């Protein structure tokens, strides 16, 4: 699979995974009525992609404006997959964007970053209206 593109809806994020370029991006908001159904295909595509050894650096842009606690678990799952390939030697960067003044989202970024040893994690503050 070369790309995984899912258009955002009112309650599910926009997904733009360009696998050959190593560019992965989540945008919008995430509080699906059924988290497993929404994230299932995303996990599968990502797992298949990461299973093939490669040297292309991976960059994951986390640009969600809001996510609920069940989505948090799903995101953690994605981060753990990325950490595993980073540990095996592939360069992986995660850029966690949050709006200016959104302390909750910044703090969540720190919560997720806590376990990342091999992934290069950075927080990016963007002006209001700059993401989502």
């Amino acid at each position, binding site marked *: 699979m070369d790309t995984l593109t899912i258009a955002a809806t009112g309650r599910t994020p926009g997904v733009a995974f360009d696998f050959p370029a190593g560019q992965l991006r989540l945008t919008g908001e995430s509080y699906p009525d*059924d988290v497993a159904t929404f994230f299932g295909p995303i996990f599968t595509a990502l797992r298949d992609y990461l299973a093939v050894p490669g040297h292309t650096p991976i960059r994951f842009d986390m640009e969600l404006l809001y996510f*609920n*606690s*069940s989505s948090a*678990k799903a995101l953690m799952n994605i981060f753990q997959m990325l950490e595993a390939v980073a540990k095996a030697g592939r360069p992986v960067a995660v850029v966690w964007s949050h*709006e200016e003044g959104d302390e909750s989202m910044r703090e969540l970024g720190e*919560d997720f970053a806590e376990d990342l040893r091999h992934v290069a994690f950075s927080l990016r503050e963007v002006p209001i209206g700059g993401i989502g």
Partner: protein
Amino acid sequence: MLAQQYAAIKRDLDGKGIIFSFSGYLSEGILYSLGEALREKMTMEEADGPTVRRVFSVFVEQMQNIIRYSAEKVTGTSSRSVELSAGMVTIGMERGKVFIVCGNTVLNADVPRLKERLDHLRGLDREGIKSYYREQLREEPEDGSRGATIGLIEIARRASEPIDYDFDPMDGERSFFCLKVRI
């Protein structure tokens, strides 16, 4: 008579500072619609984005707790997995703060475990809640919980005061559970 009865209910709600109130069967669809109305109302009142999202976050977690754990629910047949769960949700303003109260029926057998979780959360300070969240984020969900613990932590984290809860026994099997969160 009709208008009088309902006007009395409305006055009572207005008097308590209640902006929205819904009682009956809740579903993910209702969560979405009420959530949109809540955000529009707050945005009209010029609340900033992070504040709106903090209130919205508590609202979503509270609603999903009812939808998933209400002891009074109707589940759709195999092809359509609709869950209609009885409960109530009330959003209002009190001393300049938004509050959300949710209520639903729970089984008495589940009360001790729920109480234990809520008391544990009430006993934690901001830092304690934060590290509890981090810990739970990495845990596999307990059987049958569908992520209830992290949902409650998320609620406690966005609240500006310790969460309030209460149980009202209904009969030998069930109690009415109420959770009040000030944001």
